[in-house]
């Protein structure tokens, strides 16, 4: 309890490191593999124009030069141009058009998780529901998503991108994302476990004898851990969004990443990975903020009594 600041501090450091480290690791990886970087990124038999690629992407002047140039440009929002996916289109534009879809999908999927977590914390959701959620959660997201895709295809045809079809796709996608791979059941059982464990603490029993509410006692002690759980769930959704978006055909960040990978478009993949790292760092910072705020709130002296 005494050195309470160590944990949030590690998180903040990790958050600052993450967006810088992800491109660095990818760069290091490319140069560590045997062979010419440009031909690793896009084998000549697939792409052709390896020299052109190397020049366009600064691949010919060593890892450090490539990394610093790319990071420098990325800081100003310039991610270069797409190489193969949509040749010539700035990657930044592709990102900008795809992020809203992913955000909508993840937020939609997160709402039921939040409701479930809150319900579990407030003891509204009975334990019997857990088993059902867990059984559903054993289904891999691809299976649920292909069912959803079938529904969409049968109703709207294989290439439906009008507003109504997209709305249905988003909703079904969010449903798949929320239910598959233990997302919802994990949120419910995780939060329930945390809160029930705290409720068993002796100080809570004594607080009941003092006529205080249970939640006001347990919440400050569990808020940090709860924030951690919610962050893990969001990350989980973000990761799962890739499969759901591709199967149901939603033009989000995940789909962009997938198409970029398929067509060996290095710029798109690097930028998408950077985007995901930024989002993840943001979540880490948020968790650290919650922890620090709780710790400071807990430690503040009552009005007027200053030591």
């Amino acid at each position, binding site marked *: 309890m*005494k*050195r*309470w*600041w160590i944990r949030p501090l590690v998180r903040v450091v990790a958050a600052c490191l993450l967006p810088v480290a992800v491109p660095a690791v990818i760069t290091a990886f490319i140069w560590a593999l045997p062979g010419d970087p440009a031909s690793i990124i896009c084998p000549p038999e697939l792409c052709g124009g390896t020299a052109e690629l190397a020049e366009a992407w600064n691949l010919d002047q060593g890892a450090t030069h490539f990394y610093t140039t790319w990071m420098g440009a990325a800081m100003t929002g310039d991610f270069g141009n797409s190489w193969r996916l949509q040749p010539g289109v700035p990657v930044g534009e592709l990102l900008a058009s795809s992020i809203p879809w992913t955000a909508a999908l993840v937020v939609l999927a997160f709402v039921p998780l939040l409701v479930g977590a809150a319900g579990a914390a407030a003891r509204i959701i009975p334990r019997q529901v857990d088993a059902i959620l867990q059984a559903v959660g054993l289904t891999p997201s691809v299976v649920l998503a292909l069912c959803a895709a079938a529904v969409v295809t049968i109703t709207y045809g294989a290439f439906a991108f009008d507003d109504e079809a997209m709305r249905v796709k988003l909703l079904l996608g969010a449903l798949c994302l929320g239910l598959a791979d233990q997302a919802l059941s994990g949120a419910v059982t995780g939060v329930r476990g945390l809160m029930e464990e705290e409720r068993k603490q002796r100080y809570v029993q004594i607080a009941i004898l003092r006529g205080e509410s249970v939640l006001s006692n347990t919440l400050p002690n569990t808020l940090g851990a709860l924030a951690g759980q919610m962050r893990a769930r969001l990350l989980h959704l973000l990761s799962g969004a890739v499969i759901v978006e591709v199967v149901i055909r939603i033009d989000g960040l995940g789909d962009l990443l997938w198409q970029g990978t398929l067509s060996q478009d290095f710029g798109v993949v690097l930028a998408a990975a950077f985007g995901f790292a930024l989002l993840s760092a943001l979540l880490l910072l948020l968790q650290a903020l919650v922890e620090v705020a709780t710790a400071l709130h807990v430690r503040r002296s009552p009005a007027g009594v200053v030591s």
Partner: protein
Amino acid sequence: MIVRITGLHKTFVQQGPWPWSPKRDIEAVIDYHDEVAAGEVVALVGQSGSGKTTVSRIVLGLETATQGKVEIDGLDWTSMSEAERFPHRHKYQYVPQDAMSALDPQQTALEHVVETLRVLGGKDAGAAATGAQDMLERLGLGHRGHALPREMSGGEQRRVTLARVLALSPRLIVADEPTSGLEPDRREEVLRDLIGNLPETAACILVTHDLAAAKRWCTRALVMLEGRVIERLKLPEDEPTHPYARQLFDPWSM
């Protein structure tokens, strides 16, 4: 002579919440010396924070002394490395304050004692099983052999740790408040089990703040206050003279 302790000092450094907070030295034990012979049961008494637990931990090398020397059976315990102590450890046993943290949650009462007898007592499976059952019966746990720690009451957990220690017929037992957290009627049982089953040639150092119990069960008592020994008593005949010690023995006397 089993244990000889000379010139023992222990200083803890207390750190503040921040790296730049001033560090404080806390003198937990100041010039402690004592000799414990076979057959003796020595009580270390004092309030919480008087340094009695620290002394008990240093004796068995669970804490390093800042200064001073502990000899056990002629071995210079303080200057030995952990590897050198290891082959002797089974002869000198420690009973921790928190029984639950010393027990394996996945082992039953019987398995605890059997493992001790097999691994440290060098017995074969059959002998260990009967020996363990005997030991549990002696401590009144004969019917609880298949209970896991979490299924036992506080007193039963405590007695499992005792059974495991006593099964080795040790030369020395150091017990750190073996009755803390127990109901008063259970405390008496635990002390009876511990001291009543002590081998004749063994010595015992008992850390406690219950002086009534010390009077009944111990042959000597050392009263500690703020790291120093303020009074040495032969029990049960000696009456304390130091005002603090008298208050400790009979809180309602003044």
